[in-house]
């Protein structure tokens, strides 16, 4: 067998062979769609040739389709920094591949933590409203609320939300400082634009969220801050920002009775949050943090996962005790929206933990040894 020069299975020249090759190429092109764009740019052409040869040899193969689908999904997970090795886009530069892989992992960690924080904050906000009204109605000296799971969930998630916000600020500082330094430094304009666009978008989305949240926070259905275990202003603001996580979407009749501004905000705020999270992820991926800062971020990610695990456990205990399949207590009864929210918390917690572990493993390995 001669190296690199082996003939491949394929048409030998006639019109029928040309048709067969055209069909094989079409099928190969369809299979290639399983893979992400950067992978296709790097391996697409040569992989297509292999697929065409394979399809010509074995026209009907379910095993090949499943194998390609699995490979494509794994490549997508690897592209998101959730598994596998970084793509060696520039052959012979494993250090750059590692940097991109770490940045992808940190970006996914940021996205998963961000979604967890948003959905978790909505859940916490509901618990808090139950708490303040229960405290107002119950005679002084009695436990608020009656069920330990409700009490633990409210107090525990309050502490966890504050811890997650603090960790988020800590994690954002090195990224923002690096972005500011890169923008201030003299470098290629195109590179600075690649950073400036998501930075400006993030600031604009956050500004709109703060403005909208502040103007809507007076509609908070709490007790004006009385009996709240956290400052009432903070509780009202977070309630306003996460107002769209609501079971009312399933009841359009009730929703139609909402004030127009509140309804408009319920539609606008998720878009703003999505833009803010996406911009933050793009910034993290494009900034190119130093290995030292990336290690710091990965450590913060692990701390974040620990807090999120505690938050999730408290919510799960609350659902088990006071959820839709349990008896239910006034003000604290959890509905199916909470079940869905808790499932989202579980998914995002898993994604964040895998991303944090992948980032740490990539950072711990020498540049040419991505695992």
């Amino acid at each position, binding site marked *: *067998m001669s*190296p*690199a*020069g*082996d003939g*491949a*299975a394929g048409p030998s020249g006639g019109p029928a062979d040309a048709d067969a090759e055209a069909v094989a190429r079409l099928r190969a092109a369809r299979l290639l769609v399983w893979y992400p764009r950067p*992978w296709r740019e790097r*391996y697409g*052409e*040569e*992989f*297509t*040739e*292999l*697929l065409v*040869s*394979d399809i010509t040899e074995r026209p009907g193969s379910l*095993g*090949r389709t499943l*194998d*390609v*689908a*699995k*490979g*494509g999904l*794994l*490549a997508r997970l690897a592209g998101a920094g959730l598994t*596998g*090795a*970084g*793509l*060696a886009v520039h*052959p*012979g530069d*494993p250090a750059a*591949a590692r940097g991109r892989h770490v940045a992808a992992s940190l970006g996914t960690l940021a996205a998963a933590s961000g979604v967890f924080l948003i959905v978790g904050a909505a859940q916490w906000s509901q618990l808090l409203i139950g708490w303040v009204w229960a405290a107002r109605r119950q005679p002084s000296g009695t436990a608020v609320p009656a069920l330990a799971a409700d009490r633990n969930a409210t107090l525990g998630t309050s502490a966890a939300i504050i811890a997650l916000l603090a960790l988020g600020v800590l994690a954002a500082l090195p990224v923002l400082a690096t972005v500011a330094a890169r923008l201030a430094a003299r470098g290629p304009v195109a590179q600075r634009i690649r950073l400036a666009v998501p930075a400006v978008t993030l600031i604009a989305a956050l500004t709109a969220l703060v403005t909208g949240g502040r103007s809507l926070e007076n509609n908070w259905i709490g007790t004006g801050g009385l009996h709240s275990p956290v400052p009432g202003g903070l509780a009202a603001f977070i309630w306003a920002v996460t107002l769209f996580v609501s079971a009312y979407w399933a009841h359009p009749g009730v929703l139609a009775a909402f004030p127009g501004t509140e309804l408009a905000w319920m539609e606008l705020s998720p878009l703003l949050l999505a833009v803010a999270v996406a911009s933050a992820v793009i910034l993290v991926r494009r900034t190119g943090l130093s290995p030292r800062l990336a290690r710091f971020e990965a450590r913060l990610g692990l701390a974040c996962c620990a807090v999120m695990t505690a938050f999730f456990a408290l919510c799960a205990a609350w659902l088990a005790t006071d959820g839709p399949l349990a008896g239910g207590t006034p003000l604290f009864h959890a509905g199916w929206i909470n079940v869905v929210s808790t499932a989202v918390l579980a998914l995002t917690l898993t994604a964040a933990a895998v991303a944090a572990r992948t980032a740490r493993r990539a950072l711990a*390995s020498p540049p*040419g*040894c*991505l*695992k």
Partner: protein
Amino acid sequence: MADRDAADDAGLAGFGRYAGPATLILSSLAEGAKHGYALTKDVEEFAGVRLAPGTLYEALARLESRGMIEALEAEDRRRPYRLTAAGAAALRVHLAAQRRVTDTGLRRLAANWGSA
């Protein structure tokens, strides 16, 4: 035990379920550079295993990102790959470890079950 761990780190321990395909690919490339289809046929010939396209390229991407193989200029849309010095060293360590297992297994079989 520490020596064994060090040897595994230098070999293909980090490849997990892709250690098998990676071993086959590196063994094939030890003969010389080959593109994807030639690799598939060669592996099928010497190992009796047909590497499916997705599995082959998943392993190729991992080997390339770890610097164990390198891509050459494409020839007619087919890109050959060749073994690097790091890849040769990793393959040697991995195969030596496998040979220890093989030798031990064969020796114990011969001692307790007789020769075939």
